């Protein structure tokens, strides 16, 4: 049985890490205006998914 929360969080962390990494080595420039709202949305999504996972189990 695959744990969707593990996979979802893992994919998000890999993508976020790659974006920040590319910003760190100055391949892309990540703006700061959208950063915190996006993080809040991601956190909210994780909490909703976690809640659904608990309800399903």
């Amino acid at each position: 049985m695959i744990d969707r929360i593990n996979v979802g969080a893992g994919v998000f962390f890999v993508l976020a890490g790659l974006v920040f990494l590319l910003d760190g080595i100055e391949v892309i420039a990540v703006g700061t205006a959208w950063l915190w709202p996006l993080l809040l949305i991601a956190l909210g999504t994780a909490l909703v998914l976690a809640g659904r996972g608990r309800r399903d189990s």
Partner: protein
Amino acid sequence: MSEPETPAPEPRSGASLAGIALGVLLIVAGGAWLLDTLDVVEISFDVLLPAALVVVGVILIASARRHRQGGLIALGVVLTVLSAAASAGDVGGGVGQRRIEVTGSEPLRDQKLGVGQLVLDLSGIAPTGPVEVSAEVGIGELRVELPEDLPVRVHAESGIGQVEVLGEQDGGFGSELDHADNGFDSAATSLDIELSIGIGEVTVVR
């Protein structure tokens, strides 16, 4: 009458995996910090933190068939916030305390510190025209000491933390302050200052 079979307790692989991942990350971070202290390499937190985040993500995907990795997910959330702060503050330039005293008239651009305290003492600066100053700190404190009678314009921002510019204050997420002295635009000699910190405090005093 036979006793009902009790299911064998499942191995607590989740906790151990999170612990191992955290341990490995701490060892790597400590080693990098040590090498930075010994001047063997320069730590760039805006690369190190996202790299750690990618590793945590890969471990989570690889552990799809194991128990919920709550510890690893929490670690990933912390690393995401730190990476975002590092990106906002453009962390680089090492770790520790640094004090820069400026007495000439040259601009002072792109001063960077990864983690720690950076103090720019501009009280003795002697500009012959408009002078630009810019500095960034990832995590810690950024303090600027201004000369008494030189017109200045200051833009200061903080990802998470507090900004204080000549008595004005702002705090929380995405704090930002702009200040311009009277007569700045028409002054023959002036200071134009850009300051940024990821997590921490920016202070500008006279």
